């Protein structure tokens, strides 16, 4: 189902705030061979879609249908309200740079032995042909033992996709437990060293 979008002719903070109060989200559509166009999308319709960054959808802009990818979502940190969306139009034969989330499945052997699963790289930047886009990379971690590491180069990435991350970057590892002090630290009254003090004395 296509996401309905209305062309936005007015710009500015006041207009955007008024629109948000009325359940509309300001957005922009751009891309190769497409003139940038300002839009409004309905928040209610958007909530029904899976509107994460990297999601591909059809935009119905006043009669014409455009295939686009969600490039950016601006969210208000304190309330979680959606402030603005960026759509990038997809043209056949082109590539898109997308941040794809890594999803892990299974319970690692190392965790059963008492280790801690450290999920370090949660998303990777990829250059993907626009006709072969995917929304997540699923990694099975059930065979990971204590000290085992999955790097970016070990990820199941389809052919034709260029990885823009460092291949040696750690994605998941099983670390051993560190025993940590629980007791409250005693209150210290000492003051830190003041850097500027010594310098002044030298000048005099």
């Amino acid at each position, binding site marked *: 189902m296509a996401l309905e979008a209305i062309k936005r002719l007015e710009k500015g903070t006041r207009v955007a705030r008024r629109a948000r109060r009325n359940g509309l989200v300001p957005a922009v559509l751009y891309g190769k061979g497409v003139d940038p166009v300002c839009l409004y999308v309905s928040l209610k319709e958007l909530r029904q879609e899976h509107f994460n960054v990297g999601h591909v959808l059809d935009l119905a802009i006043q009669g014409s249908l455009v295939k686009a990818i969600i490039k950016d979502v601006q969210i208000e*940190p304190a309330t979680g309200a959606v402030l603005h969306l960026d759509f990038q139009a997809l043209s056949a034969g082109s590539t898109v740079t997308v941040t794809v989330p890594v999803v892990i499945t299974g319970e690692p052997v190392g965790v059963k032995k008492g280790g801690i699963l450290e999920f370090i790289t949660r998303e990777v930047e990829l250059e993907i042909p626009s006709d072969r886009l995917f929304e997540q990379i699923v990694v099975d971690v059930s065979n990971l033992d204590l000290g085992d590491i999955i790097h970016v180069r070990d990820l199941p990435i389809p052919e034709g996709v260029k990885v823009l991350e460092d291949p040696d970057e750690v994605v998941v590892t099983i670390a051993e437990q560190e025993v940590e002090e629980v007791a409250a630290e005693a209150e210290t009254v000492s003051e*830190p*060293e003041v850097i500027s003090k010594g310098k002044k004395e030298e000048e005099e």
Partner: protein
Amino acid sequence: MLMPKRVKYRKNHLPHIKGKETRGTELAFGDYGIQAVGRGYIDARMIESCRVVIAKNIGKTGKYWIKIFPDRVWTKKPLEVRMGGGKGDPEKWIFPVRPGRILFEMTGIDGETARHIARLVGYRLPFETKLVSRV
């Protein structure tokens, strides 16, 4: 308790806590985070108190991160002293919190434990907080 090792000046202006937070508003390491809803100054003793309660409740498989550091000083004049005579002496180390800031992050625990810890941490802070998760 958390405090800087070296500082350039002994006293600083009181940091502003107006507006909403723009940095440190998303989960960076863990699956759960404790996010500030209100605003205020959090001092090293409060952070330590929260750390203790998290460490006690997180269990063996859990891990946590403290996402803030109190690097600004709060000064106070002695009691029964008239106004004037310069700025007071450093009393404690603080961090300015605006709505949206993630204060602590946790991983390796279930939702029930995370909610329990978030409630206990909330009691120890001078503003409202909420639990955020990746799911």
